């Protein structure tokens, strides 16, 4: 009996090896980096929901001074998790029709769990482009002046990345018109004890000519309870490596880890240590471009997190005729 089981195990192992032709190459240097990350255990924090709601109340008040939330059109998301307020743009002296009522708004505010987004919808492209450090300065001062972010020695707004929204006209002679700037966004990352919280962001949209704040968004940036810091046991290097490998095992391509970064992640009322892995596929000439994904792997053992996708997952149908 033992022989049969042993034989079956070997066959099963061979099948697994032959099917799983994907590979992620984690070279010695990356493994060494990972080992260093795991040796320096970072604490897990609880977020301070009460302070978070107080900040949201401050944001609500600021938005309320820009658009009337009482009279704004309200839209509740299908999953009942978000509420959007919009004030529509009524143009010219045309009669207000049903379609026009639903046309572009000029102010928009979306409240969803751990997220607030205010946008003033302005289409005013200009030739002026502010230096990135100027946009960052405007954005940082705006957030600080209004008290939209609780910064401490431990929990800070890190350097911003500035991304502009550009538009250019396309001509028949296959040239593009000059670059016009719609808005410049300062995207602030959050750092806790020097580690970036990968899913926390505050974004300030600045119009380059008027320097008016066109948008403000805070995403998963809830103050933390510093006294809740608790060092918890980390997973072993082997477990982390196994998780990384598992995330790529269904691919038929070979990937090389190109970048590994220690950081934090805010989810389920906690901020906890993670590692972010970026990997590049080995693309052979003439082959299709393999998919890329960044991977965030939790480092702490036995965290109590909400998992899985939000709603029902449905499989696509096979091809059939279009209808209408």
């Amino acid at each position, binding site marked *: 009996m033992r022989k049969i089981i042993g034989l079956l195990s070997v066959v099963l192992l061979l099948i697994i090896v032959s099917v799983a032709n*994907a590979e992620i190459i984690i070279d010695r240097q990356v493994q060494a980096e990972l080992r260093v990350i795991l040796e320096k255990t970072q604490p897990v924090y609880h977020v301070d929901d009460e302070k978070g709601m107080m900040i949201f109340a401050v944001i609500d008040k600021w938005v309320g001074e820009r658009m009337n939330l009482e009279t704004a059109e309200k*839209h509740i*998301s299908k*999953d009942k998790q978000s509420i959007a307020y919009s004030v*529509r743009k009524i143009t010219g002296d045309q009669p207000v029709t049903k*379609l026009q009522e639903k*046309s*572009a*708004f000029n102010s*928009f505010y979306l409240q969803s769990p751990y997220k607030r987004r205010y*946008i003033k919808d302005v*289409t005013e492209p200009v030739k002026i482009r502010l230096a990135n450090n100027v946009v960052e300065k405007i954005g940082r001062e705006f957030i600080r002046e209004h008290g939209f972010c609780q910064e401490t020695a431990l929990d800070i707004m890190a350097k911003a*990345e500035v*991304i*502009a*929204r*550009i538009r250019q006209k*396309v001509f*028949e002679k*296959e040239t*593009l018109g000059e670059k016009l700037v*719609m808005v410049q*966004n300062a*995207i602030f990352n959050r750092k806790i004890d020097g580690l970036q919280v990968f899913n926390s*962001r505050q974004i300030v949209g600045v119009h380059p000519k008027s320097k008016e704040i066109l948008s403000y*968004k805070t995403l998963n940036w809830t103050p933390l309870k510093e006294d809740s810091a608790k060092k918890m046991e980390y997973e072993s290097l082997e477990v982390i490596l196994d998780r990384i490998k598992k*995330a*790529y095992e*269904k*691919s*038929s*391509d070979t990937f090389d880890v190109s*970048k590994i970064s220690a950081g934090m992640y805010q989810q389920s009322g906690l901020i906890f240590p*993670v590692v972010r892995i970026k990997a590049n596929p080995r693309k052979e000439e003439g*082959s*299709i*471009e*393999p*998919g*890329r*994904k*960044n*991977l*965030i*792997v*939790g480092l702490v053992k036995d*965290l109590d997190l909400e*998992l*899985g*996708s*939000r*709603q029902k997952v449905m499989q*696509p*149908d*096979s*091809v*059939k005729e*279009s*209808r*209408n």
Partner: protein
Amino acid sequence: MRLSDFFLIISFTIYLISSIGCNGITIKRDPFYPKQGDTIDFTVEIDDVGDMTSSNVWLGGQHHTIISSPKHIPFPTCKYTTNQYFTSIEVKGDVQYFDVSNNDTYGPETLDLTTGWADYENTSRTYSIYVAHEQDDSMEDIFVEAASEFINEFGSFAKDQYQWAHPSHFNNQNAADMLIFLGHGNHHHYQWGKNNADAIDLSTTAFGNFAFCNNYSDVDYLMFFFSCNLLSLDDFDGQHFSYYWLNKSSTRLEKRPFMGLHQLLGFRTLSVITESCFGVCSDNGDDFFYTLAEYFDTGSQIKNSWLWSIGDELDQSDGENRGAVFFNDLYEHDTVFTGEKDDYIYASPNYYGHLWVEYHE
């Protein structure tokens, strides 16, 4: 008024009406507002054919001698079969009678064929969403979850199709107003299947009311999620990026995606999902589509919704996930609540002069 005067006026009125209706030439057409690609069915009607000495009709410069009435003349304008690029047609005609005082003319009338309205351009607003089969099953799972998130959350359009991506979605008419494709990509290519050969060269596809001759496509908004570099602004194979998306004089007889398309939305750089694995894995593709649905449903511009959702939910570090939108500014303010609009093709004054690209930099 005397009774005799009254009858005189009535008789004169009847004579006038009958004289208008009885002698002359009329050229009717179906469809009444034709567009390039239609076979226009012209019907020439001559009054009192027996009293006619001759009649001529010119349709797009082609001469027809009319000897009977009604006379049906089909006029094909499909560029693929006629090898001609019709932008307009001049319609005119004349008729001569024995009694020369009854001679009549029709036109000239110029029909603009570069502005179009298709039968599918109706009030039912629908979308279809297609997921590519992937070499990597885990990526396929990510796309299916993301697509499901959009279907679950988006409420303003009715769902038409939710299918595995297939070349027929590019080569057949499509009745939906909005198409969303998930899958890998490259400069003007979408990878619909697992094999190297399973890539669609999008420069050979057409969308909008002019996409198919005598058939109708209603696609206004075309979106590609997770398709790396698909909307790259770089030159490719010695050609400017716009060569692959727009018709111009030298390519006017070929297909291009902008044949009535309002907006093309995608990524100009690598598009990378971030998967979070804490026990089981989830990803920010879900967050992107949830947010996109929210922006759409609250009446944000289509274009803004796309670019905002990318900036809000995707990781833009290291130059990744830079969104891009190629659009005609006549549709710039379109939202999912915008009503139906005319479509335009190359040579229309509403084509070049109105085309823009907007992107993250």
